[in-house]
């Protein structure tokens, strides 16, 4: 039952004013980042971690969803896979944003000070893992894993546009099977390296899953936002239906519930055992004003989007999807702020330092998307699953 004259719009550039906005945000962001690094390198560094892990969330989450589509044989995401493939390009700014962090590692990470480690039994026993050489090597390995798989997935997908050969899909399925376990390990270790080791005495075995869940949720929210907005503006194809929207909404709903489950489990286990070597992390996030940030995360990251998306009709409404996606993107930023900043300051702080990286990241997302939308097809026209994806019905 092929749909009545599906009109696929394979390639359409983003409007010029959006591209200009993207460039403007990028340049303003870069200027603010430079100013903040010149005035207070430590504070800029902590914000750099937030922006860096935020971009890594979107980039790696996008690669994860590409792999997931292949390995699960999903069809409903196929028409929109290019959005994910474009977003994966954010791996490049991730690598670039790591450079200032490596230059300021001593300001940010307590365990990089050899004299501190030598006098600290806990850090000394962790030092075979937490040392600068191994830390750098590990980051290189993560980038290699993510980047290599991403570029091969993407290259196969782009080549398929030319000749519609199914062998590229098969290749990508095999690659996806190899990639997913590697991703599970690398993203967990990445979060442990860059976020958990900010408090090197603290540990939580759930932390990797916590960051991973936030990662894929954010990548999905960004994708959903792009898909809804671009569809409304007449990209992709004519006749995107509520089944596509519903699938995005349902997946987002499921993932945000999963995030709440993980976040609460991590909190409850530490709260219940109440061991001093674990609970200080939550205590420092429940005093001096941080408690309001904590409550805001519970509301903005779970309850509000939960009730926005809970009913079936609301998962099909483009406006609800757009708003909840934006809300979730913001909450992930807030979540990272909440993970990182208590190490820097006892009270929540907000000024242009904190604005620099959000502006930069949003600008980068738009710019990188626009550059690729200009060059490549927005719809994988050669994918054998494309028509089924367009005709998708629940």
């Amino acid at each position, binding site marked *: 039952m092929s749909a009545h004259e599906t009109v696929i719009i394979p390639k359409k550039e983003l409007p010029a004013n959006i591209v200009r906005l993207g460039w403007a945000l990028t340049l303003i962001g870069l200027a603010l980042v430079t100013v903040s690094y010149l005035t207070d390198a430590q504070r800029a560094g902590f914000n750099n971690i937030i922006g860096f892990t935020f971009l890594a969330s979107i980039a790696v989450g996008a690669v994860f969803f590409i792999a997931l589509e292949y390995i699960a044989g999903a069809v409903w995401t196929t028409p929109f896979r290019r959005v994910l493939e474009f977003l994966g390009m954010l791996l490049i700014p991730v690598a670039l944003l790591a450079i200032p962090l490596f230059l300021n590692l001593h300001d940010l990470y307590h365990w990089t000070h050899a004299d501190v480690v030598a006098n600290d039994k806990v850090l000394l026993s962790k030092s075979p893992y937490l040392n600068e050489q191994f830390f750098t090597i590990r980051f290189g390995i993560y980038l290699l894993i993510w980047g290599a798989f991403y570029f091969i997935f993407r290259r196969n997908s782009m080549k398929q546009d030319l000749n519609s050969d199914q062998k590229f899909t098969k290749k990508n399925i095999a690659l996806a099977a190899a990639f997913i376990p590697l991703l599970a390990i690398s993203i967990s270790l990445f979060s442990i390296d860059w976020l958990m080791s900010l408090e090197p005495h603290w540990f939580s075995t759930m932390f990797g899953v916590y960051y991973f869940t936030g990662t894929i949720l954010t990548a999905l929210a960004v994708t959903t936002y792009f898909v809804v907005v671009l569809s409304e503006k007449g990209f992709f194809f004519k006749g995107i239906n509520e089944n596509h929207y519903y699938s995005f909404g349902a997946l987002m709903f499921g993932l945000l519930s999963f995030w709440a489950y993980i976040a609460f489990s991590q909190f*409850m286990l530490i709260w219940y055992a109440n061991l001093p070597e674990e609970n200080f992390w939550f205590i420092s996030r429940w005093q001096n004003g941080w408690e309001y940030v904590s409550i805001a995360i519970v509301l903005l990251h779970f309850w509000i989007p939960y009730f926005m998306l809970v009913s079936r009709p609301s998962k099909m409404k483009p406006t609800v999807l757009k708003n909840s996606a934006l809300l979730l993107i913001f909450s992930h930023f807030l979540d990272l702020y909440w993970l990182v900043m208590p190490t820097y300051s006892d009270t929540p702080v907000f000024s242009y330092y904190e604005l620099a990286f959000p502006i930069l990241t949003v600008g980068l997302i738009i710019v990188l998307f626009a550059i690729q939308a200009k060059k490549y097809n927005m719809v994988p026209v050669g994918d054998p699953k494309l028509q089924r994806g367009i005709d998708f019905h629940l």
Partner: protein
Amino acid sequence: MGLKETKLGFVTLAAGILGAVGMISFASWVAVVDYPQVIGGKPYWSWPAFVPVTYEIAVLLAVLGTVGGMIAFFFKFPNTSHPLHDTPYMKKVSADKFGVTIQSEDPSFDEKKVRDLLKSTGGEVEAIYYTEEFLNFKPNTFDPKFILLLVGISLATSAGGYLYWNKLLYMPPFDWMMEQPRFDVQSQTEYYVDGHSMRLSVAGTVARGFLPYPYKLGDKADSVGKYLVNPLLPTKTTLDLGKKKYLTFCSPCHGNFGNGDSRLRGQFPNPPTLHSDKVRTWPDGAIFHTMTVGQNVMPSYQYQITREDRWAIVNYIRTLQRAYNAKESDLQ
């Protein structure tokens, strides 16, 4: 077909909210009002601990409510499915037949014409159903078959329960655990003249290793203390034993070092320090006596800690006292 979007979701929501609110109220009532207990030093109303069970009950009630609501409101119990399911049409459709939906609201609709049209294509028309009769069906609550079923179920469960609890359990071979060739506690027997099934021990029987303790609560610790002699030498073995027992039984109130500064400070009358001149000049036996019979708020520990362990604790307390009031010679 004129079917509207189902309203079942609201039943699910209502049941889920009922489950969540009910469970959190129940858990709060149990933990705060009915059986308050301090667990892990946390307040009675420790809501994070209620979240998992609240979540589970909310999901459970939502699921049961959905199934129950579907049967009760939408199938109109005692119907257990939509009546369309009971037609021969549903048994065959998607096996070797398929269904066609035709709008009968259409003014030009004519059943005969439709039948002829379908036949003319070489098909075979089994039956035509109108959705009206299925959308407005009534529950047949007083259907004799349903009444009979209810009566049958009640009779079967009551009869089965009666037979199981009152007959089957007393029939061999199911009475294995019920009837055993032994006497229960405090049961009577005709075998012995005195009627006791349990034999009493011979008068004056003493357990192995038992030593009577001649003093009681109220005897002055320092006056009875001089008659009790510590049988243990302060060797490493006894001090390690004493430390272990001290940290287990004494430290919750007296503190890890005997200063009376434990984490329970303020919740009970505070125990005095063990480093006072009074305790330091007591004979070993006085400390032993205090542990054995208790003093003020402190209960007797003679049933929790063996005699030997109590003497080991005495040695350990002596070590603590010495550490706090070291002599010149100790520092060399």
